[in-house]
Every structure is written in C-alpha cells, then in structure tokens.
C-alpha cells in the first residue's frame, strides 16, 4: 500500500524529471543544505541561550519569541527541499536505513516539542525570572542539540547507501 503510493509518487512527472536531471537535483540539495545552515543555527542559538552559553544579555523570552517564526520558515524551506529529494527516489529512500533513522529522529523531535512545550518553550518569561537557566531548560536544550546533530549526520549517511536493484523508476 505505502510502497505502491511511493512508486506512484516518484514517477510523477516533476519528480522523475528531477531524478534524471544532472543539475537541478544538486541545486535542490545545495538549497536544502543552505536552509539547514541558515536556520539550523537559530535552533543552536536558542539552545545555547537556554544552556546559558551565549547571548546572556538577551532574555530567553526574546530568543524563543523572536526566532520562532523565522525558524519555522526555515524549517519549511529545508523540509520542502528535502521532500523534493525524497520524492524523486521515494521507493529507494523507503528501504534506506539512514532515511528511516532520520524519520524516527524527526518523530523524537516532535515528542521533545510536546514534552517541553509547557515547561520550557511555551513559558519563557518564567524561565527569565530565575537567576539562572533552570535544569529542565538545560535538559531540553541538550536533547535538542543532540537530536538535530543526529538528524544532520543521518542525512549525510542517506547518500552513502548504494542504489538498489529492481526499483520501479520510469
């Protein structure tokens, strides 16, 4: 069921064109990495502030509040490029162990967001009232850095898996 959907997806004209294009595919890949660089650092900046390692003159509320929307836009840009890369070889990616790992890590990021929404990200003003960044905020930041760094590495390793035989590319 899922696999037949993925085969249908990868053989849609724009995605099969992307797959066979010598230059558009790397351009999308470079845009994917550019979005990661430009906006991934916003996640790092937020985490560094929560850990108390940078930007201590600015409040936690400012870092979380001001970067929220630019971060979301950046994530959408990186995810759109990622989706294009995936869709052109959807069937192959489905079997790719590193791609599966990456998806699992994204699910963990979603869990992380839900777990820390109330205590950290949803109420930064309360964190600012404490003399030092509290332990729960540091834990959230440390886990966030670990998860996103793992996603970055998993993403690099996706490209190292050899193409499979018997894929239904048209």
């Amino acid at each position, binding site marked *: 069921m899922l696999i037949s959907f993925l085969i249908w997806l990868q053989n849609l004209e724009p995605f099969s064109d992307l797959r066979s294009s010598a230059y558009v595919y*790397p351009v999308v890949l470079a845009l994917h990495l*550019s979005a990661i*660089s430009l906006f991934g*650092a916003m996640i790092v*900046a937020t985490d560094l502030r929560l850990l108390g390692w940078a930007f201590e003159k600015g409040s936690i509320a400012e870092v979380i509040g001001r970067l929220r929307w630019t971060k979301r836009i950046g994530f959408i840009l990186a995810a759109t490029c990622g989706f294009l890369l995936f869709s052109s070889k959807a069937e192959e990616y489905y079997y790719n162990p590193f791609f599966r790992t990456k998806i699992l890590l994204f699910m963990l990021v979603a869990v992380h967001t839900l777990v820390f929404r109330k205590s950290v990200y949803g109420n930064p003003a309360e964190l600012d009232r404490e003399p030092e960044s509290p332990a729960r905020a540091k834990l959230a930041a440390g886990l966030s850095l670990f998860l996103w760094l793992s996603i970055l*590495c998993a993403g690099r390793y996706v490209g190292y898996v050899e193409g499979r035989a018997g894929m239904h590319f048209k």
Partner: protein
Amino acid sequence: MLIENPLSTSPTIFPILECIHIAGFALSIGMTALVDFRLLGLGFEEQTPAEIARAFDWWMLGGLIVAVFSGLLLFSTDPDMYYLNWSFLIKMACLVLAIAFNYTIHRRAVSLSLSPAAGRLVACISLALWVSVIFGGIFIAVIRPGLT
C-alpha cells in the same frame, strides 16, 4: 618513499569527517546569518546587530575553524581531484571572499550604524557569498572528475 594517507585507507572516516564539516559550516554560516537577518529586519529586534554579532562571534569562529580543518582533512584524501575541480576552485575563491568580507566590511557595517539600506545590502552580499560556498561544495561531486 610514498606514505599512505591513513584517511584514504579507511572507508568510515570520510563520511564522519563530512558530518563534522557540515556541522561546522552550518554553525558558522548560520551564526553570521543571524546578524544578516537582523540587518534585514528579520528575527531579533531588541538587540542591535553589533550586540548579536558579539554574542555569537566566538561560536561563528569556532564553527569556521572546525569546518576549515575538517575540510583540509577531506581535501587531503584526494588533492589532485580537488585541485583540478573547477567547482572546488570557485568554492575556495568564494570562501576567501566570504571570510575577508566578514572580517572587514561586514564587521564595520555591523559596528557602525549604517543606513538601513546599506545594512541590507551588506547582509545580502554576506548571505550570497556564504551560500555560494555551499553550492560550490555540492557541485564538487557533480562535475567530477573536472579539469584535466
């Protein structure tokens, strides 16, 4: 006597170095982008561009050092290929320009309060230079083997 580069004999070390390289440049480029976005009126508002630059300067430099050193190690595995690859040569030119721009005009634009229009121009040049370094890096693998 020829000495084998230990990095070339191990199949596992190259991708690990690449991950370190990507993490390093993402950190340094992204930290510069925070300042550029501020100049463009995106993201931070309460702090001046100079304050943001000061807050993340060392992280930017740290990322850059990690990216350059892991890059040198990656280069050492196949120097002939890189040296003859025009995408690599363009990348190096953009990198030198980006670093020079960052520590001269960009730094001055951030510390002097320029007109908003001039600030936006500097931010766009900075972002364009750093993004071209990324494009140059990706296309090394596309135009292989390159020049002869």
